[in-house]
């Protein structure tokens, strides 16, 4: 039997408008980075060598896994087994928050490392883009963690059920957007040379 298409994306439609705007904003920064790299190729390649790709790699793993846990929590809530659902789903959300916090800690270590090397926003064009992109993304992860914490509390209090989890889906969509942005940021800033 053919599946019926849903009318709207999961969650509140307002969140999707925010997501589309955020994607466009970051997209312009990504394109700006790529064009500036072309103009100052040697400088960008030399500056990129000062980044530790292991930080970027671990952070990508953390965000993907965190997103995966959120998908699992929604799946559990939609299973309609109230008592086991609340415990397991909130545990998955808590784990996703933990991974998000780890992401931020690693970013702070990376920023401190750059600061100790005397590298900042005004060092050169590469690092200007590096700090703007990663700090801007950092703020989104921070906001995402606050949203996830609220989802955790609501889930624990039994506010979401199999037929009413729009709030959970809205927060989850935002968190997946943060993941999607990093999926491009990682190869663009850390890998491609």
């Amino acid at each position, binding site marked *: 039997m053919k599946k019926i298409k849903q009318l709207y994306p999961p969650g509140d439609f307002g969140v999707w408008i925010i997501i589309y705007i955020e994607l466009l904003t970051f997209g312009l920064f990504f394109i700006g980075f790529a064009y500036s790299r072309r103009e100052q190729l040697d400088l960008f390649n030399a500056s990129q060598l000062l980044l530790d790709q292991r930080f970027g790699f671990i952070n990508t793993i953390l965000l993907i896994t965190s997103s*995966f846990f959120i998908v699992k929590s929604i799946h559990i809530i939609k299973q309609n087994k109230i008592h086991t659902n609340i415990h397991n789903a909130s545990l998955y959300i808590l784990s996703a928050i933990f991974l998000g916090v780890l992401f931020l800690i690693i970013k702070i270590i990376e920023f401190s490392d750059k600061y100790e090397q005397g590298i900042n926003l005004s060092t050169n064009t590469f690092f200007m883009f590096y700090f703007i992109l990663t700090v801007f993304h950092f703020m989104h992860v921070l906001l995402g963690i606050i949203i996830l914490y609220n989802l955790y509390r609501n889930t624990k209090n039994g506010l979401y059920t199999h037929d009413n989890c729009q709030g959970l889906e809205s927060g989850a969509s935002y968190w997946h957007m943060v993941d999607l942005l990093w999926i491009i940021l990682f190869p663009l800033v850390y890998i491609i040379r």
Partner: protein
Amino acid sequence: MKKITTIWIILLTLTLFSFLVGELKITNNFFIALLLVTTFFKGQLIINYFMNLSEVQLKYKLLPIIWLASVLIIIAFTYYLPDL
């Protein structure tokens, strides 16, 4: 749920591939093209299965897909276009 777990493993594997391209400093055109294609594939998986847009009307999932493709095509364009 098994499908989502498989997608998560694919995403981790492709991330490991990206990391190895960077770590081994592979800079030839073929691998960079492959890296951009795998990034598009990863983005598609997140849009379709994590954001759960695979079952919604085309117009709602078209915007993130067009965004993803456009950004990666422009990155490729700036990478491969010969110097003026």
